């Protein structure tokens, strides 16, 4: 019997706004507990929410990037439940009139493109963080009330690989849209999974379980790798799947049922009386659409067309918006396109993957890279020297041109000096000269290397070859 999994994702994305969703507190990560709080986000009596217009704009922008339908009218609702992480004991969210409805995102897995449906996108407030120490607990309300966008997909994903590909593609779009920093360590993207299995060909979806507590994309992948076979095993043993919420345990690599109580919630949604419905205007929506940033697919095509980059190279560069931004900034500063692309793809991305930091946190700026590549292009320095200079800039920062000057790294193109080096190399290596004349090209390369050595690496290699050939007749 063969089985198919049906996977839907509920992805919570923290929006990149200056302030919280319903008050003026900063929307910032990492401060001392309970320092970004005010009576409103602490749920003090008498306070009222005021919706953050920028959060609404970013949610609508996300919808546009995912081809959702943007309704001009939407509303907020109260979701009632008692828990210490929600200061009013209700969360302001959107129940039946979300900002964006429908949409899709294409993913590529094993060379196959698949279109994954988006059900809806809505806006809500994030909850606080409960902190446990010893026998006591505390609540940090810094995160409480920060804008949180929830993207719900159709159960169109069938494998852990597809789920992972979807999350990566979504992250790319949201980063491109400047909607969210999508920093996973800071919890900018969190994800719940709905997962069921059915026999291939069966029309109805199977009974689903909800998986929670995946903190990384890898966690989503692994949880599904565990949950799908678990459900199949259950069904093959003739048991049925219990509709329940299961918690992913990263350490043991298993999912386990959460207590049933969590599932029994009746959230008693009703329209938030403190907030009038959101009413967007046609003009507003049109303006936001006009402001949409370029998406990866379009950017890749543009890089190929405008700069003659190979498809593959352009793909690598646009995969991460920050990398593509760095590349274009270097071009702006005068870097030759192909060289910039090569250097970023090899030297800089290697460093990025070593350190795990973003390309912008490297000590080399796009302008410095441009300056370095210009020095190579003008033959002031050669390739190996350029790598040496790059290592210096990455380690200590600084301006390549100044470093080259300071350290006397400019290559020698003085024919007189190089002719002397060439003569020296020829006379010191008669065997290589004989080999060369016997038709062994490796011997020539050896002689080039000797001249380079004599010039301490600063010789212009092109010139060295010409001079050697001339002297060897």
């Amino acid at each position: 019997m063969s089985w198919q999994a049906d996977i839907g994702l509920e992805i919570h994305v923290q929006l990149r706004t200056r302030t919280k969703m319903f008050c003026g507190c900063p929307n910032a990560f990492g401060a001392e507990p309970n320092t970004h709080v005010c009576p409103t986000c602490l749920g003090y009596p008498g306070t009222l929410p005021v919706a953050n217009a920028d959060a609404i704009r970013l949610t609508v922008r996300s919808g546009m990037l995912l081809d959702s339908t943007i309704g001009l009218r939407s509303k907020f609702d109260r979701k009632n439940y008692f828990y210490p992480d929600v200061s009013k004991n209700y969360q302001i969210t959107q129940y039946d009139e979300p900002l964006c409805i429908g949409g899709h995102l294409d993913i590529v897995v094993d060379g196959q493109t698949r279109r994954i449906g988006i059900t809806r996108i809505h806006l809500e407030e994030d909850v606080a963080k409960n902190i446990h120490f010893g026998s006591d607990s505390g609540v940090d309300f810094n995160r409480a009330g920060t804008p949180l966008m929830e993207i719900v997909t159709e159960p169109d994903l069938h494998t852990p690989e597809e789920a992972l590909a979807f999350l990566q593609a979504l992250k790319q779009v949201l980063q491109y849209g400047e909607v969210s920093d999508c920093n996973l360590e800071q919890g900018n993207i969190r994800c719940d999974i709905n997962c069921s299995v059915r026999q291939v060909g069966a029309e109805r979806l199977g009974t689903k379980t909800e998986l929670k507590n995946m903190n990384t994309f890898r966690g989503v992948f692994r949880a599904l790798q565990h949950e799908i076979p678990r459900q199949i095993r259950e069904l093959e043993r003739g048991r049925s799947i219990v509709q329940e919420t299961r918690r992913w345990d990263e350490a043991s690599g298993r999912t386990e049922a959460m207590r049933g109580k969590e599932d029994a919630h009746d959230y008693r949604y009703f329209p938030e009386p403190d907030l009038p419905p959101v009413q967007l205007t046609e003009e507003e929506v049109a303006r936001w659409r006009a402001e949409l940033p370029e998406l990866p697919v379009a950017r890749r095509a543009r890089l190929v067309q405008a700069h003659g980059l190979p498809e593959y190279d352009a793909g690598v560069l646009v995969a991460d918006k920050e990398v593509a931004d760095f590349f274009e900034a270097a071009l702006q500063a005068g870097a030759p396109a192909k060289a910039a692309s090569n250097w970023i793809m090899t030297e800089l991305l290697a460093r990025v993957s070593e350190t795990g930091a973003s390309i912008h946190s490297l000590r080399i700026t796009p302008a410095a890279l441009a300056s370095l590549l210009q020095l190579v292009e003008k033959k002031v320095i050669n390739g190996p020297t350029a790598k040496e200079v790059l290592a210096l800039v990455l380690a200590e920062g600084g301006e390549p041109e100044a470093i080259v000057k300071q350290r006397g790294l400019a290559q020698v193109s003085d024919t007189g000096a190089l002719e002397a080096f060439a003569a020296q190399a020829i006379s010191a290596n008669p065997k290589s000269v004989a080999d060369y004349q016997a038709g062994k090209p490796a011997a020539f390369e050896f002689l080039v290397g000797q001249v380079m050595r004599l010039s301490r690496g600063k010789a212009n290699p092109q010139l060295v070859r010409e001079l050697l050939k001339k002297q060897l007749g």
Partner: protein
Amino acid sequence: MAALTELTVSEAVRVLSEGGTTSTSLLEALLQRIDQHDGAIHAYVSIDREDAMRQAEAADARRKRGESAPLLGVPIAVKDLFNVKGQPCTCGSRMLEGYIAPFDATVITRLREAGAVIVGRLNMDEFAMGSSTENSAWGPSRNPWNTDCVPGGSSGGNAAAVAADIAFASLGTDTGGSVRQPASFCGCVGLKPTYGRISRYGVVAYASSLDQVGPVTKDVRDTALLMNVMSGLDLRDSTSLNVPTPDFTTALGRDLRGLRLGLPSEYFGAGLDPEVERAVRAATDVCRSLGAEIVSVSLPQTKFAIPTYYVIATAEASANLARFDGIRYGARVKADSPLELYEQTRARGFGSEVKRRIILGTYVLSSGYYDAYYLRAQKVRRWIRAGFDDAFRSCDALLTPTAPTPAFRFGEKSADPLQMYLSDIFTATVNLAGGCALSVPCGFSATGMPIGMQVIGPALAEETLLRVGHAYEQATDWHLRRPQLKASV
């Protein structure tokens, strides 16, 4: 000259500006009278005398510097649900015992800017749920006209204080009649402005879509004065209206020629006390004699108002009051788990009427009942609003009784919640419909208890109400009568 405490706000402003008295003298006279009489009335739950005196001194200093402001130096008392920075704000509940407000409500800020001295916190039914102050955790207030009778509620402390001249004027809130009904019971003027006219920011919510701040005053002019100061857009309250604030006093001093006033037949039917009916009909005649045309109208939705009100108000309240959980502020009963902490804290912190309404509200929002109750109530609410719209096509305002009876005795209705709920029958419809309404004194019962007439207008028709109320007031002297108080000390 009358005793300082008998002054209205507008009189006090005049005397102050003429140099006839100072803010500190006014305050001292007021505090002295409170000492004499509030033992019997129990209008106040707390007074910070030092803080009030500092404000009065500051007002006097401002005046000395040549400054002027609409309410400069006049003491104003507020219901115990307005956040006033540094002051308690218990909402008549043990749940907020010891709570100190961390900020000023927008209306308080506006009153301060207008020079008012914010003094004292007035008793109320717990979280504004009630019609008699019998639901206050701190004991009921008493009606100055007869201390065996309730002052009405929920803003009962407001009306009792103003009627007893132990407040010059006061700020209350009206969700289903909580300003107008006590004003009627105590012989004061009470206004429920249009929803959104005055910011709700800093006012502890009972039912967010119905709550509105309203003044309780000695006469209609004072209501106009306070409305001038309090009204207007507030960006902290997304439901506040972006409409210009007129000078409400320009509506005063005009007769009623050209106005058409409607008498809705449904407000004069069974259940209406005959003395109340007589007084209101007589008041109608006065309005006619002042030039108004009186017409009959029908509001067939009236009988659905109370059930609709109690579904919507309790639903909203069940969520609004969820925040009182003992975690961040207010009373807390220690327990081993959060759930237990909530249960214990709320079981001890809330009184029985509040619990009843939270349970009711939770029920009508529950899965399986939502459509039959909450959703349906919203539909009926729209229908009620349409009914008022219809009525206002044939008249400028409605004249009705404010409450079906004069003030009742303690205990008379507290055993039967439904009877108590029905005392809002003529007022709650206005909150549902989103209009505005004014209660003015229009007579007394045989036993000497005040009776109020309600003037109801469509949204933003406060000027019409004030015009009618003021013209009527000028033609009668009900508002000038004062209860005989026995000094309690």
